[in-house]
């Protein structure tokens, strides 16, 4: 993601507790940061609560930001880490390794057989939390399987396997959406996220 370089003066002021400088940082990055929180949670109310925690952590950690990466990338990492930790705490991702290895987390249940999603956001709610995390991080946020493995405590192979199954389920859930759409997928479009 391209982004404007962070204003160093704003950063210093935000570290010093200047509300307006903090608000400027938030305004510039909230939509991107909150989007990943929302996608990982799959529940807007829960996401709003976790987003508050994420932003508190970002502000707490400001003094440790060295500028080695873009501010948005740095903050995004905090958001992912904090969200996954929060989901673990409330057992939305319980025993993630087991969840990831368990095919039943992906396999459709009775209600899913008749469910057709109206959006990918809705379809993602039908994935298990672990599978959703892998899909969101890889296909939407652009993480590699190695990075996902580190975040989720699984192997890169486990991440690939989970992604394959998540995509298979999404293709089925979203079939109706594409049937109704007049949009034609561009030929030759390749998978954009790094493997």
């Amino acid at each position, binding site marked *: 993601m391209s982004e404007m370089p962070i204003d160093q003066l704003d950063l210093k002021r935000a570290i010093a507790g200047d509300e*307006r400088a903090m608000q400027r940082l938030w305004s510039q990055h909230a939509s991107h940061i909150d989007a990943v929180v929302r996608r990982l949670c799959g529940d807007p109310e829960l996401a709003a609560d976790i987003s508050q925690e994420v932003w508190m952590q970002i502000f707490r950690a400001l003094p440790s930001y060295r500028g080695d990466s873009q501010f948005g990338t740095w903050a995004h990492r905090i958001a992912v880490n904090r969200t996954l930790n929060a989901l673990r705490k409330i057992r939305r991702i319980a025993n993630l390794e087991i969840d990831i290895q368990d095919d039943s987390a992906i396999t459709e249940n009775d209600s899913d057989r008749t469910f057709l999603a109206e959006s990918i956001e809705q379809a993602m709610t039908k994935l298990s939390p672990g599978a959703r995390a892998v899909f969101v991080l890889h296909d*939407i946020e652009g993480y590699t399987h190695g990075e996902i493995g580190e975040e989720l405590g699984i192997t890169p192979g486990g991440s690939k396997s989970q992604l394959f199954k998540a995509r298979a389920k999404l293709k089925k859930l979203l079939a109706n959406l594409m049937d109704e759409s007049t949009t034609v997928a561009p030929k030759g479009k390749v998978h954009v996220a790094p493997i």
Partner: protein
Amino acid sequence: MSHLSEEQLDQIIAEERARPQPPLNEWRTIAARAREEGLIRESSSSGWVSSQPWMQAAAAVLLLVGGIGIGRSTMGLPSATQTPSAPPTASTAPADPVGATAFGSSDTTFASLEEATATLDRAVTDYKRATAFLAANNSSARSSDSLAMYSARLVALDKVFDATESALQTAPHDPVINQYYLATMGARAATRQMVARPVALRGF
């Protein structure tokens, strides 16, 4: 029902990736949490004007007073600083924090130059009295370093006041100097009262 192709799914994902999404919370919610945790420090949230509502209102009126100074100079009238005795109408009205009594509604019209001048003088007087009243009665300030902050502010305002007063000797009708002189005078009076108040009344 057929499944999507890989390309079709990638297209949907690309659209989702680019879809703008609003923040999950409003800034005031985030700010409230940050304030609770001490991440926002009130003393560094703004310049010399406090974040207290009464001081913000006073700041808004300062701009008004600046406009008065400019207006007077533009019209070639003597500045308020040169006519310390306000017209008779100035002293009886109760203190009004925003000077609304003096200015009335925005569609107020004036029958004469004298009437408009009297209104301007009344506004300046009301502003000074309102600022002093708010400083004397406000008890919402609460910060462990409030006294140090007010003292530092007073030192700064004293310097600005001295400088603008000295400049007025040379250029008594300069609108910008008048603006800063009047604004500083009001803020200095309010700050002096805050410094002089007993600690308990400062809300520590």
